[in-house]
């Protein structure tokens, strides 16, 4: 158990090199994890806090006080270190800075000068991201803005500047892009082809591109524009700019536009522009009105799977057909639909294991767009009112990711929620997405499988079972390998669906009888 302790030296000053040397000296003492010696200004206190070095002892320190803070294995080691620091501060000063090891500087300027870069990928904390992006735009670079927590006012400013300069700002909070075959962010290893994708939806873009790969077609470009691009305030600036680019791209034969529910006026603007692009355009605006899409001479798709299947069929010259009200499209290449024998058996087995109190779906998502799609599908399957009784959480939302990694990178947050969901006696189905790709966790299914087994064991002790339904968004060329990841989940007893939409349909089918019996569904 680590302890943090500190001592204040009021109105005290020693030169900064000496303070660094004292810090290094006491950090080398046994039982000391880290140390800080600085004037207790608010800025320095923030740094100390971030380093876990702020203790109650420093609460009264002001900007003219020197604070010595240590994190130690135990109180004794901390006290010893503070006494050593006090001795050093009372003694004569030392001289001379120590040498540091030189490493190669990596700058935007070097990127431009040395490799002729035309794009900057920015992944700083949101507070700093705007300045970095402005800087890149000023240097004539397109921007892939991975950072989240960027204010919408900044986004508007950045996109306005980009439009004026003929550049793209992909983001903020842009998870994915594939540009000239180069994957950025969480992107997956998908086959190259003639389908151009533009998405205001990171995992939506991933799901569509992965399914296109699964169906045997390929992607020319995948341009993420950030989840707020089709917000009223942003006005679809980058979707319109990207549309122009793909319209002019000779390698792109047809275009898919993907978004969470857009603002009505922006949607209209985009549909009008798409209608004039001169190439077939498939519109996958979750919850959008297909009649408006059709009226604009465009092709509607209600789900990511429908968008991928339609685009793939068109690119490969195959017929397109829709098999249900969700717009889920059956193709020869698609993995088994939700109603096939295998999944029917899985649904039946899951239903048989539930007790009457278990009726609820708990969706724990790492992808915001996939979570949005799941809600939509549950609404279509169970009825909008009944669907709201179930819970679909986007754990990648800003409210969960401030100061901690995205759940697609670090599985701990979702595993905590999974344990809580499993402990809820009303939980019948835990619905999950597993997103693969270059930037994602190296073994997300492995981490989940372990948490699922533990949760199942805990539930079994209370004589309860629950079903886990998941889809894996990825390809067999991804670093994590779709086949390997699906196998890990199957071994943990997870019911697998080939797409997120079908996973949600399966979950709905499992709970429907129990929910009706419990009086939760009409």
């Amino acid at each position: 158990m680590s302890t943090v302790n500190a001592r204040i030296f009021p109105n005290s000053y020693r030169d900064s090199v000496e303070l660094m040397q004292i810090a290094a000296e006491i950090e080398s003492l046994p039982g000391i994890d880290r140390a800080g010696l600085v004037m207790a200004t608010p800025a320095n206190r923030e740094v100390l806090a971030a380093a876990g070095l702020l203790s109650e002892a420093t609460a009264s320190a002001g900007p003219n006080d020197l604070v010595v803070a240590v994190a130690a294995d135990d109180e004794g080691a901390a006290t010893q270190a503070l006494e050593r620091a006090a001795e050093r501060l009372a003694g004569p000063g030392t001289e001379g800075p120590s040498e540091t090891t030189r490493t190669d500087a990596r700058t935007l300027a070097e990127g431009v000068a040395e490799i002729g870069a035309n794009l900057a990928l920015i992944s700083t904390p949101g507070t700093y991201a705007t300045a970095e992006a402005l800087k890149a735009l000023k240097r004539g670079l397109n921007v892939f803005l991975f950072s989240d927590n960027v204010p919408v006012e900044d986004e508007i400013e950045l996109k306005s500047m980009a439009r004026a300069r003929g550049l793209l700002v992909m983001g903020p909070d842009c998870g994915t892009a594939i540009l000239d075959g180069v994957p950025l962010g969480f992107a997956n290893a998908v086959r190259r082809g003639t389908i151009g994708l533009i998405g205001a939806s990171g995992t939506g873009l991933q799901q569509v591109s992965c399914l296109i790969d699964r169906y045997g077609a390929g992607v020319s470009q995948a341009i993420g524009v950030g989840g707020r691009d089709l917000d009223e305030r942003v006005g679809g600036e980058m979707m319109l700019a990207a549309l122009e680019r793909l319209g002019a791209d000779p390698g792109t034969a047809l275009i898919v536009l993907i978004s969470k529910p857009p603002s009505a006026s922006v949607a209209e603007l985009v549909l009008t522009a798409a209608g004039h692009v001169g190439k077939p355009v498939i519109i996958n605006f979750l919850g959008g009105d297909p009649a408006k899409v059709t009226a604009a001479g465009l092709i509607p798709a209600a789900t990511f799977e429908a968008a991928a299947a339609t685009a793939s069929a068109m690119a490969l010259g195959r017929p397109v057909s829709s098999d249900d009200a969700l717009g889920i499209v059956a193709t020869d290449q698609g993995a088994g639909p939700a109603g096939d024998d295998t999944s029917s058996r899985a649904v039946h087995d899951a239903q048989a294991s539930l007790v009457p109190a278990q009726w609820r779906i708990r969706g724990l998502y790492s992808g915001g767009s996939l979570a949005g799609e799941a809600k939509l599908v549950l609404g279509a399957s169970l009825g909008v009112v009944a669907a709201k009784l179930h819970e679909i959480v986007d754990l990648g939302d800003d409210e969960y990711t401030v100061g901690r990694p995205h759940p697609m990178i670090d599985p701990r947050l979702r595993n905590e929620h999974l344990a809580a969901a499993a402990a809820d006696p009303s939980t019948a189905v835990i619905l999950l997405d597993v997103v693969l790709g270059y930037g994602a966790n190296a073994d997300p299914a492995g981490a989940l499988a372990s948490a699922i087994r533990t949760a199942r064991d805990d539930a079994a002790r209370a004589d309860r079972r629950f079903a886990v339904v998941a889809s894996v968004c990825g390809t067999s060329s991804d670093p994590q390998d779709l086949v390997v990841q699906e196998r890990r989940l199957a071994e943990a007893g997870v019911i697998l669906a080939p797409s997120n939409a079908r996973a949600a349909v399966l979950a709905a089918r499992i709970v429907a009888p129990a929910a009706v019996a419990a009086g939760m569904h009409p």
Partner: protein
Amino acid sequence: MISDAVPRRISRAAVEPLRVQSIYRSVINITTADGLLTVAGEGGGLPNGIVADLGPDWRAIGLHPGMVADASDAKLRVPDAGLEIEFAGASRWSPRLAAPAELVDVAAARWTRRAAATRAVARARASAGGFGPLLREDVPYGRDRYVDVARPALAALIVALEIGDRRRAAEAATRLIGLGSGLTPSGDDVLVGIEAALHALARPTAGFVALATGGVEARTTALAATLLRHAAAGEFAERLHVLLATLMGSDDEAIPAAIDRAVAWGATSGTDCLLGVLIGLDVAAGVHRALD
């Protein structure tokens, strides 16, 4: 030698007694209602100060923190220590830094020509402490917590100054105030250096720090707060005047020695100020800057 800003400070402070704040080997700081008044034995003129000779070690002349001092146009006294500094024979010096309009373009052009070479000299000679790693450009993330915080804030500041956005510059400056080690934390020294360069080249963004100094006394040390307020008003230490005159002057060969003198100020303040000056000159002269 006495800064002509000192009588202003003394007159404003008349309503409240002055007190000795701290005593070092050759520096005394005295609190006034308008910031610190500094008496220094070396290092040239200070915007808030008086240069005097009070012997080899000022800690041995009977001064203690909290002692009451008084001052007038004619003298500064600490009666309990028997200390009296007469101004009558002192030379007056103006800390205000402003370039003659007709020389600004010439100076900017000179800087543009020699910026890269000067940076190379500074890189080789900068201190490893403070924000020196930013000047030395050997700064992987994770090695120094303060540098890690400073770097993106400085990058944001540079962009803001490049696009002439004083509000955004002040926001970035706020993140630097009070950041880092030393009696004048590194972030404050950098800001002073940047302001000096902007004033020297008469840029419209000069004075941006004024937008960030509201309540600054609660956010940084008393000395740093005082120097920031002077910087916002275009007033700087004599050594900064000399450094800038050399960096924008006609003699290329004088630059390495000027850099050496600059990095020798204090433990890290010189390097931090120099970092700010180089950033400020680059921004003011439109030299492409790569602090990413």
